[in-house]
Structure formats: C-alpha cells, structure tokens
C-alpha cells in the first residue's frame, strides 16, 4: 500500500515525507552538524572544504553555497535543518521565510503584521482568486 499524497496539491509547500527524506538525508545531516559552535566556525572559515565532509549532490552543494533557501527544499532540505545555515549567517526564520516567498524583508514583515498570508486562494495549486474561499 502506498500512502496517500493528497498534500501534493497544496501550493508552495514541501512536505518532508519519505521521498524528500531519502533525497535529503546527507544535506540535512550537514545542517545538523552546525549545532556545534566548533563546526560553525569551521564551516564559516571554508564552506567548500567543510561541505567536502558530507556526501551532498552537486545540486545540494550549490544550493547551500548560494544560500538558495527554496532550492534547498527542492533537493530534500528540511526547513528545521536548513534554518541552521541561516542562523550561521545571522538570519532569522522570518528573513528566510521572506526570501522563500519571493518578497522583500519589509514586505514580508508587513504581511505578517497585517495578519499573515490568507489561506484563501492558497489552498490548492492553480487557485488564482486571492479573495475567494475554496475551503
């Protein structure tokens, strides 16, 4: 039996299921290593050399070096892990969330202050009418 993947219809969302878990294990374990201050210092000193210690794919390696936050999710990154790279850079969850959703830091912060992103129009892929309730 294969588990239902009905969440695949949610737009802009990368559920960390077995498919991503199989692809992203090494990438996320690299991120996990950044829980140690000594490793953070080594990573900052020479990112490329540090990454050599982990069996990342070329795409994963490039996404990390370019800080392509959305790209990391697409090659198996889990946000609770990839955020540790952002912490290393002195960024916050909100900084990264803004970058992933493709708006400026200010615009994202303003959206949150105004009550956040509405679920209306954002429940199913292909929805366009932001005001319409499809729930």
């Amino acid at each position, binding site marked *: 039996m294969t588990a239902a993947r009905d969440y695949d219809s949610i737009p802009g*969302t990368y*559920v*960390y299921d*077995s498919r991503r*878990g199989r692809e992203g294990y090494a990438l996320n374990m690299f991120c*996990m290593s950044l829980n140690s201050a000594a490793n953070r210092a080594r990573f900052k000193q020479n990112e490329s050399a540090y990454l050599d210690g982990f069996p990342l794919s070329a795409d994963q390696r490039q996404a990390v070096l370019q800080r392509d936050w959305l790209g990391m999710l697409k090659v198996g990154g889990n946000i609770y892990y990839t955020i540790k790279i952002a912490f290393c850079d002195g960024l916050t969850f909100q900084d990264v969330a803004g970058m992933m959703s493709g708006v400026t830091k200010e615009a994202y912060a303003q959206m949150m*202050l105004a009550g*956040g992103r509405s679920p209306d129009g954002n429940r199913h892929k292909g929805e366009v009418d932001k005001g319409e309730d499809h729930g």
Partner: protein
Amino acid sequence: MAEIVAGIACSHVPAIGVAMDRGMTGTPYWDPLFKGYAPAREWLAKLAPDVAIVVYNDHASAFSLEIIPTFLIGVAAEFPIADEGFGPRPVPVVRGHPALAWHLAESLILDEFDMTIANAMPVDHGLTVPLSITCGQPPAWPFPVIPLCVNVVQYPPPTGARCFKLGQAIRRAVAAFDEPLRVVIYGTGGMSHQLQGERAGLINRGFDTAFLDGMTRDPLSLTKITHTEYMREAGSEGVEMVMWHVMRGALDEQAVEVYRHYHVPASNTAAGLMILENGVAT
C-alpha cells in the same frame, strides 16, 4: 495518588524565547503578546503544580534524522539546554522527575503505547519557550518537568486521534502513581504557521479560533482533522497542533477553559495559549 489538575496549550515560537532572552518584551511589536501571558503566569504560580509533563517536538536538536522516535519520554534527573545553531538559550537547566517519568514509561508501554525512553537528551525551544511563557524568567524552573517528544519533523507525525489516546493513557498512568502529586500537562506547538516554501507566512485565524473553541466544545471531533487538512488550512507547520490532543486526552471530558490568548504575529506564527482545568474532584 497523583492527579492531572490542568492542561496548558501553548505555542513554542523560538522568537518568543529570543524576545525574552534579549529583554525585548516591552517593545511595541512584542508587548501585546506578552501582556496576554501575564494572567497565565499568575494562574500557574497560584496553582503551584508539583510536576509538569511537557508534550513538545524536538527541532533537530536532541535528535537528528539518524533516529526518529514517534513518541519519546525523558526519564533523566536533568536535561541540559540544547544548542540549536545559535548557542543554548540562557535559561535554567530543566530538572526531571525520574520516579514519575519511569512509572509513565512502564505504564504506557504496558498500556500498548510503545514509548522510546531517553536517559540523556538536551531540550530545545519546543520545551523551554512554553516554560518561559508561563513561568517568566526565574533563576530555576519552579517545578520538575517530564519531557514527552512527538515527532512532527519527518512526515507523518502520529495522528491526532492517536495523540488523544496517548493522553488518555497518560491520565490512567498518572492516576496509578503512588504519590499525591498535582500534575499539569502542556501541549505545545502551533497554531497556524508555515515556515517554508513560497506559501510561508500562512495564517488562518478562522481555523485557529474553531480549534480553540473545539478544545472544550467537541475535542473528539478535532482529533479527526487529517494531516493534509492541518497543512492546507493551518500551514505545513500547523500540523504541530496534533500535540495539543495529547494534553486534551489527559484531561476530563468536561474540562473547562479558564483562559485564552491569541495573537498574530509572533514572527511567522499565530501564537495561541489556552488553559483548561479539570473539575473539582468529587
């Protein structure tokens, strides 16, 4: 005999901990959130429980992807504060309650809940932020804590219905413990939020309000919410709300709401807090 006297549902947004640790709680951004926490702190200080069970999820702190326990109970005498990637939070070490924790582990497993047992683990913001929210910044936490971790990082988390049943088993186990302890149980995480992808920042006040209302009106129907519904309606990380059901399952069917606070935003998240009390024992 020990007894669960109350439940606390509480978001565990890391930025709330940062705001406290850096003395920013009085800023215009944070003030409305923290004002709403004050009555909960007063209530908890007055209740003065003997021990707390805190149901939370680890966020790649104690556990990596090497081993992913679905349900885990911490039985240690002490739990250090984790370095989550920016140094440990400057909060007191968390004291455990090994006697009750081991009793719970044995009782739950024999009651067919196959707990993983942790003798040593650090605890992260998932556990410490709810303590900070409800206890403030004391030099030592006012009661020992039993950490109970639920996996919500690797899909799928346990279902809401399973979490509720675990709560019921916790209640039976606590009631069978041979010391007159007054226990509170925290269910943490949520409410609506999405930290990842192009849809980051999703908030659903309607969903959250119905969820808060349902905690007393019809908690069993809330346990039927599917993971996909949580993720679609309350954001991918909103699925953390399954942990509230553990707390709810451990309380009386007729538990009453004594306090609620809901605020948007706390960073990317709708922060919710609810206190439920069991009825007076007859």
